[in-house]
């Protein structure tokens, strides 16, 4: 009898291994923070610009690349907003398996780098245009990755720039919650600029978190931007392997599971 982890690994690989791609971590090839392709620099323009902001996450770990106009991009967009419930459910299953395997196989790798076990996880809700609970928060709750409370709530009573990294984007509910000394992990669906997710990191620090890590299901890539087409062709040819470590870009830091 296969273990649940083996079973989920097999299912994810059969249903999505042919289009999902492991992230690349190589200095000068991809951003040291968010893993987007860079042209010889340590960090991408956005992450480099934000680097001086105090309180950003200790580590950002996307699990895959989501490439616009391909199946991976399609899944990451349609899972939350397709008009058809069945389409949303089919794509949600892929994302849920991906996140589950990311957590069971590689949360410990993040803990290894950060130096402290994860005390609590939070899921990032989307900011606008959606009534009720955000699909990603629902997904994370359904799989027991996060609790119903405390939770991150987008604020509507503050104003900030579209790309601004500021704790004012979110509030924690209940507001009295303390995370003193803890390592908290933020779960996110798609990292594009990271400004929303990093904003949540700042807020969690205000509540006392000593360490903040981010696990994002995907890093969004536009093939039309810069040399991304070449990067995709030359570096993203291999099928997805859930055991490939998203923290190191190769094998898991010792001790592995």
């Amino acid at each position, binding site marked *: 009898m296969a273990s649940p982890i083996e079973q989920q690994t097999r299912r994810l690989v*059969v249903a999505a*291994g042919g289009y999902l791609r492991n992230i690349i971590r190589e200095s000068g090839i991809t951003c040291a923070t968010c893993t987007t392709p860079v042209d010889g620099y340590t960090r991408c323009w956005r992450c480099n610009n934000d680097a001086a902001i105090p309180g950003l996450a200790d580590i950002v770990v996307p699990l895959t690349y989501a490439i616009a106009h*391909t*199946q991976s991009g399609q899944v990451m967009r349609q899972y939350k907003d*397709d008009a058809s419930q069945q*389409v949303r459910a089919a794509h949600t299953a892929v994302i849920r398996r991906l996140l589950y395997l990311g957590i069971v196989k590689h949360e410990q790798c993040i803990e290894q780098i950060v130096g402290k076990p994860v005390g609590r996880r939070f899921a990032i809700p989307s900011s606008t245009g959606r009534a009720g609970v955000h699909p990603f928060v629902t997904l994370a709750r359904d799989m027991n990755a996060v609790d119903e409370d405390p939770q991150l709530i987008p604020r509507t009573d503050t104003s900030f720039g579209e790309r601004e990294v500021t704790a004012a984007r979110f509030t924690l509910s209940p507001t009295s919650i303390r995370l003193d000394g803890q390592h908290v992990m933020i779960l996110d669906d798609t990292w594009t600029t990271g400004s929303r997710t990093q904003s949540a990191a700042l807020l969690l620090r205000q509540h006392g978190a000593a360490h903040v890590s981010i696990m994002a299901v995907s890093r969004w890539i536009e093939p039309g931007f810069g040399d991304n087409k070449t990067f995709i062709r030359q570096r993203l040819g291999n099928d997805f392997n859930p055991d490939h470590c998203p923290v190191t870009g190769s094998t898991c830091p010792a001790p592995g599971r």
Partner: protein
Amino acid sequence: MTEHNAHENATLLALLRLRPNSMGWPEIAAEVALRGSATALWDEIYPAALDGMGGSEDTTRSEAEHTWTQWTASSDFDVISVLDDRYPVALKQIHQIPPLLFTRGELRPIETAVSVVGSRDATNEGLRIAANVARGLVDRHITVLSGLATGIDTAAHRATLDAGGRPVGVIGTGILRTYPAASKDLHREVAAAGALVSQFLPDAPPQKHSFPMRNATMSGLGLASVVVEAGEHSGARIQARVAVEHGRPVVLTDLVVQRTQWGQALRDRPGVFVAASTAEVMRIIDRIVEVAEEPALPVLH
């Protein structure tokens, strides 16, 4: 069909004709599916002019209304857009969503279907396997998808019809064309017992680039693709590749793996299975159907 739907569909057709910002058809289909509306996308791209006067795009939209009315009035075919509840759910999950489907017969929004494809120049052994696999699918009440080409496709469709099953033919021309011309009767029989589907404008002739697009659609309509026998440059090769890229399982017979380099290369990719007999193909299909029916979503403890 309500007037609202007709307006939505005509707006979708106008967007396909205008291709704003050089958007491709699948991209337009995906954006429309996200909004559940073509007019919502239209209004984002073409904000209403302050003076109430439309530009040339409004002319395109009126012309599209006219075309749409003609299409829906046709007794020769049906037209189903990505906004329609009748549009197949499985096909809406791939990134090459065809915005429009022209059909004859009955297309179903939800059904269990498997492609049986292969080369035009098939051996007797290949034809025999294609027929056996098709019969095995019919026994399981699984719809048999194929492309109405000569060789393997014809054998799969014919066996499906003879066994009283449901064939769906996915064609690479407009619905008003028949290619190859000799398969006119088969087209008719497939439409009568199942459905004939085209993603191209009704009069579109056979074109080289249409057939790979057709294979992507066939992969998208099905739960899996079985490649029975294929050459090094067969269209079935394209279907196998795009199916892997869609996350839809592929079953290759050992004929394909032994006789083609691409079959050799593909066997190690995710979701690709190799079968040495019809019985093995069917065992793999049974397992794929079983997995599809039991989502078994993961939960952390």
